[in-house]
Structure formats: structure tokens, C-alpha cells
């Protein structure tokens, strides 16, 4: 189980490298697999471990991308720090094993969409805010946030389908 998750995360890194090097969808879209990687961290782990893993993964993603070092790490730590709260308000702990990460097949598509929407929003609000730091018009940041969420949430669904469908 653990090995499979590590393999998934490595695969996400490979996807992130491909996305950074070959996918350029303009200034409004940021394809990022880090929030999905953070969601793959087992929910049963303590917050401290989740935070450290999110920070480490964030730094690695920052190093892989051309952006500012620390941006993904800051957003990832914020997402990991609020993840327990997000789990509590979107999916019930009864729906998945404590040591596992919640996936679409365990909690259902609606709850998973709620989870992805809230956790990804936290991540990308932090990312877009720190990336622009008020130097861009608010409408630009808002559009960027909405379009980025619109791209990354379906991507998370696709990844769930690809990773978890066979193991139901």
C-alpha cells in the first residue's frame, strides 16, 4: 500500500516535469500536481508529518519549475496545515481507512469534488496571491485562480480514475 503511494507520488513528479517543460497554456493556467500529491499523503499521518512532507514536496516542485523558490512550498504547507479541517467539513472519516488517503471511489464523487475544490482553492489562492503580491490587477488574479482550478480539479478526477479504479 505504502509502496504504491510512493510510486504514485514519483509518477506525479514525472508529470510535473513534463508539465513544466512541455505544457504552456498561457499566463492564466498553472498545471500543478503538488496539491494532488499532498492529497495522496495518508490521512492517518500526524499533521507534523503531513506538513514536513508537503514542505519537502513543495521545495522539490519549486526546484523543478522556473518559478520562485518557496512559492509552492508556502502554498503546500498552508494546504497541509488546513487539511484536517478540510477533511472534517467535506468527507466523513468513516468513509475511508485512517491510514489511507481519501479517494473518489471511497468517498463518492460529490464529496471528493468538495474536498478537491476546498483544498485546491486554499492551495491556489495562496499560490496566486504570493506569486502576484498585489502587483497584478485583482481581476487577473481572480481569473487565473478560477481557470487554474477549472483545469486542476478535472485533472485530479482523472488521476483518481487512473490510480484507484482497479483497486476498488
Amino acid at each position, binding site marked *: 500500500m505504502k509502496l504504491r503511494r510512493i510510486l504514485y507520488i514519483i509518477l506525479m513528479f514525472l508529470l510535473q516535469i513534463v508539465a513544466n517543460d512541455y505544457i504552456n497554456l498561457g499566463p492564466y493556467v498553472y498545471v500543478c500536481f503538488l496539491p494532488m500529491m499532498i492529497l495522496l499523503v495518508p490521512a492517518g499521518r500526524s*499533521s507534523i508529518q503531513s506538513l514536513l512532507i508537503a514542505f519537502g514536496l513543495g521545495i522539490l516542485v519549486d526546484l523543478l519549475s522556473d518559478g520562485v523558490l518557496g512559492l509552492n512550498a508556502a502554498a503546500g504547507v498552508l494546504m497541509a*496545515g488546513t487539511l484536517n479541517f478540510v477533511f472534517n467539513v467535506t468527507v466523513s472519516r468513516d468513509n475511508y481507512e485512517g491510514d489511507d488517503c481519501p479517494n473518489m471511489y471511497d468517498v463518492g464523487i460529490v464529496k471528493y469534488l468538495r474536498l478537491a475544490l476546498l483544498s485546491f482553492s486554499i492551495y491556489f489562492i495562496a499560490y496566486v496571491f504570493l506569486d502576484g503580491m498585489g*502587483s497584478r490587477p485583482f481581476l487577473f488574479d481572480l481569473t487565473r485562480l478560477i481557470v487554474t482550478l477549472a483545469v486542476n480539479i478535472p485533472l485530479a478526477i482523472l488521476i483518481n480514475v487512473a490510480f484507484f479504479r482497479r483497486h476498488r
Partner: protein
Amino acid sequence: MDKRSTSLKIIAGVVFIVLEVVSIVLIVNNSIIQRTRIVGNLRGLQTFFWKNGEHLKYYFSLQKTNDDLAAENAGLKNEVEGYRGYLESLDINNTDTLFSPDSMKGAAIYSYMQATVILNTVNKQHNYLVLNKGAKDGVKLDMGVISTNGIVGFVSSVSEHYSYVTSFLNTSSTVSAKISSNDAFGPMSWDGKDTDRATIKEIPVNATPEKGDTVVTSGYSLMYPPGIPLGTVGEWKIVNGEQLNVTVDLFQNFNSLHLVKIVTNNRRKELKKLIKR
């Protein structure tokens, strides 16, 4: 079990803050835009706290400010009376006409603008102050700044609403000072140690002062009017057999500065033009 859970939550909170701070430090160190914005916001926050801290400090030092103002008032009144007496002794009958505002218009060499200190450092080698008056109020570079107890510094940078003052407590600042008892003058500077002491150099040996003599501004400057009391003579020592280094106990307490006056030399342009020739 509950205790352990609470401890873990506290540790997680600390780890969260530490990791966020580390991330933001990385961002600040790796991008000019983020650095400018984040550092700018932090400076804004710092100024807000300083400003309010100064207000609080000012509130608690109102008694002393009142005493200082009363003393200054009394001094000015005495000075006016002295002039009146002097004029009367010259046998001029109508002194009121002579002192009417119309007759005094344009005669003043120096004019003063009241300002409030919103930031003041005293613990560095190059100290500075920020005043609540700027270019919008007519503040310009190189204007002197004084208070009721002596000189404070000079304006070295001006923004629209604020001015940055290089404090006299700056190892690279000097002011021309003279010992009022014998008119011997020399450059007075701060040695970077005690905030209540300064040193006048280049005083001739034959102009040895008495301990307690008053030291005032010489007026050999475009920034400060002559005769502003600066302090009293403390110790002195002979340097190279021909000059004296005189220690001055300053009147100015830089730790409790709040109200200051920005000095405008109305003939500065004319003097500068003349010096350039």
C-alpha cells in the same frame, strides 16, 4: 492522552509557522517583486507600530513637554522684554510700531516649522529620525532640525509626507559650535558612545574653557541659527600640544524627542550663490 494530543497540536502549529516563514524567506530571497512587496508591507507595519508607540510615549511624557514649553515661553518672553528695554534705552518712543507684524515681514532670516517625530533611533552608529512633515509641507533637503534643547540633525531625504533626518547622533555628522564664554569655535561631533555627550575639536589651547561654560551653535552654517544652546563644557584635554578636545554634556535628550522644529534659512539660496562665486 489528551495532554499528548494538545502537545502535538501545539508542536504542529509551531512547525506550520516555521515552515511558512522558511518558505516566505526563500521567496523574498529569490524574487525582487516579492521582496519589494513583502519587505514594503513589513516596513509599513513597523512604521505603524513605531508611530503608535511614539504617540503612546508622547502621551506619557506630556508633563515634561509642557514644562519644556513653559520654560521656552518664559525664555522668549524674557528675550522680548530685553529687546524692548534695549529699544527704550535707544530713546525710540513707539516700539509697538517697530515690532508690528507688518514692519517685521520679510525681515526674519530663519523661519521654523513644527514637526512630530514618528521614528527615532539612538542605538546605532548612524542614527536617524523620521518626521511627519514632507515636501508637501515645504520641507527641503539640508534643512536643520532643532528642538527646545538643542540641535537634532538635518533633513537628508524627503518624501511627499515625511522627511528622513540624519540625527546628530551619527558618527559622520558635525555641527559648528562655540563656547559662549570665549567665542572659541570648532566642529562638534558625536563619538558614537554616550548619547548625552559630544566633543568639540580644534579649540585653540589659549581659549581654555571653564567647566560648565555654555556651548552654543556658532552660526557658521547654512542649517542652524547662531546661539542655540547645545550643552555645557565637561572635561577637556590637549591634543598634539596645540589644540583642545572639549567634551560637551548635551542638553538634548535624544531618547525622549517628540516635538521638533525644522529650520528654514530664508537666505540660503543667496548665500549659496555667493559662496559658489
